[in-house]
């Protein structure tokens, strides 16, 4: 299957360096302290944040100088093409939860909430490639909605290589499973620091540079979209109080 047609278009009609359409909404739930809904193309993810609150379960897990971050990654049974038998608790989900926690721990200012716990729950409603990235992005929005201080946006993006030479950004499920390599990057776009890197399949080392740069650029573009959404949300929430916004 050709990932890029003769006109240089991908399977869903995008150009190689185009992101999928991002739609998001903050504050979708009442109960959690913060929540967000994010769609990247067909991948739809819900994120909910509870916290900071007292440590549930064993007190021994409490860290004396920082907050404990607890992440749970769950895929709805109807999210994939074939019904998923186990929404969470299998190895892949645990690994995703670990990576999510890792990425978010790098931006949350945990030192402000000693002996507390922050819960982040992420549910994938439709999985169409780039699940982890959408989850990270949704979690960032939910954290902002919850009012938990973070140093920067934590944004994740995927990138791949088509035909061994053209880098693709934000790959869909079909492009993932077609056998091409895929690189997932979770980074802080303003400082350019990479917090998590995951890669599967294989490609030659020489291409790593290109693909990583594309992924980072994708992160920055996503951040711009998310930032706008946050500002719009805050402006509408505070419209009654005349909250003003400086445009950066």
């Amino acid at each position, binding site marked *: 299957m050709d990932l890029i047609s003769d006109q240089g278009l991908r399977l869903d009609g995008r150009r190689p360096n185009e992101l999928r359409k991002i739609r998001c909404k903050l504050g979708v739930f009442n109960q959690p302290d913060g929540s967000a809904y994010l769609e990247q193309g067909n991948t739809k993810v819900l994120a909910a944040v509870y916290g900071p609150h007292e440590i549930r379960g064993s007190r021994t897990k409490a860290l004396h100088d920082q907050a404990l971050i607890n992440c749970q990654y769950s895929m709805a049974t109807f999210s994939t093409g074939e019904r998923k038998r186990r929404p969470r608790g299998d190895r892949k989900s645990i690994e995703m939860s670990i990576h999510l926690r890792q990425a978010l*721990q790098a931006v949350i200012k945990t030192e402000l909430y000693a002996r507390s716990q922050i819960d982040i729950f992420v549910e994938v409603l439709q999985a169409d490639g780039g699940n982890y990235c959408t989850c990270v992005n949704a979690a960032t929005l939910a954290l902002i909605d919850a009012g938990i201080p973070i140093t920067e946006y934590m944004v994740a993006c995927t990138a791949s290589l088509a035909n061994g030479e053209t880098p693709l950004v934000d790959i869909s499920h079909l492009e993932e499973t077609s056998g091409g390599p895929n690189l997932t990057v979770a980074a802080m776009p303003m400082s350019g*620091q*990479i917090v998590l890197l995951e890669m*599967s399949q*294989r*490609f030659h*080392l020489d291409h790593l540079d290109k693909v990583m740069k594309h992924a*980072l650029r994708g992160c920055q573009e996503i951040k711009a979209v998310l930032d706008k959404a946050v500002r719009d949300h805050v402006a509408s929430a505070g419209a009654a109080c005349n909250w003003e916004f400086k445009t950066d």
Partner: protein
Amino acid sequence: MKESALSKNERTFILSALSENRRLDGRALDEFRDLNIHFGSDWGCCLVALGGTKVIAQVSCEVQQPKSTRPNEGLLLLFVELSPMAAPHFDSGRQTELAVQLNRLLEKCIKDSRCLDLESLCIAAEEKVWALRVDITVLNHEGNMVDAASIAALTALSHFRRPDVTTTGDQIIIHAPGERDLLAITVHHYPVCVSYAIFRRANCILADPSAIEERVSDGGLTFGVNACRELCTLHLGGHAPVTAQVVLQFASRAAARAAEVVNKMKEALRKDLDNRISGNITGFKECIEVNSRLSLEKDNFCVQLNSQGIKDGVKRITEKTEVEGVRNNEGESQREGFVDQHVVVLLGKGSAELINRKQKTVQSERNYRLPENEDSDENDDGDDDDDDDGDNEVSSSESSSSELISESSKSFKGSEDMDEALTDSEKEVAVESQKLGHSSSMNIVKGIELSGDSDENVTLSGLDKNHSENVWANQQPKSESEESNESRQWYADSMW
């Protein structure tokens, strides 16, 4: 069991040593430990030792139904087990996070990179295929289990032989090994994992971290590369953000190392094949060395003496039978020399040293004094070939208790730095500083009674500064000392 806490002293020591580009075991920042590959007597059984980390992998095969999404391909299952014998904090039972991560990383590296020819494992499409199962067990955790596990898994897969199958119309016949030769599995490429540990505060990246370095590190970077410089998996984890440059830089280094490792693997495979052909199957017997310690935590504790002043001091000491008194400082350390002839040299003021007469020269070299500057860290002393004999933990690896404990006579100004990883093991260096005021002569004691050997439960620890002197005085003239000497004699013999 919970993992034993990492003390601040250990952490600061390692970090400050790193800021001077020194590692605890004396390796260079980008140096890897020795890699040893051994094969068992069965096909597909492989033991890999990367320094102290030991991992064993076993491949087995079974006929099963293929996955519906891939009806023509065989199955490959990887299962990593962190055996409780590998580390005290590993529990049997549900897979911990670490085990899950290890498992996933290896799956991505070996399965997703399609290094095996799974289509050749198909017997009857959509009905029967060979399912290969690789069971990886970590036997000893001394850091960097990922690398060792990936090498073990790949070597075991290349080593494995499966039964031959013939399909005649409806019938499928699986031939016994005697009937027809077993077939090897086609491995297209060898994606080995190469790991690095990232330290933010010391601003450096180490290759092949040891267990304690891993604990102190902020993050880890693992590359799965094959010999053709193709990247098969990449994982950056932990709490250390990095820039893209760093990743690229280390990617190329990892590729170089991967090429070396693959050569070693192929070499080991070839040798084993030759051995089997000549009928000389040794199994794991040869990798269990009878003449070295197995049950202790560390092989050796290496200290490098830098300053010339120290060396001079050391020479002076070795010439004397009676040593000048030492000045005791805070901290605790002691060192044992292990030998046939135990003599305890009392260094005055509650510190003593068990010295082997014939190795006295070597031992004394280890006694060093830190000069005015705080620079002398501990390093690997490559010239010292008595490393093994030199410091060994004696008895159990419980700290304090039954050892002769001397107050550490570290005359370092920054003594906190030197309180390195002494908690678990008993490797301690008796640092003897040159006089500066005290000149009580040393008494050579024929034997010393150790707490635990007698009814008197005297526990000496470095904290008991005030008490230690009295205790020494009480303990010296005991007659059971000879007995305890002998029991230590036994210990010494079994060590080497």
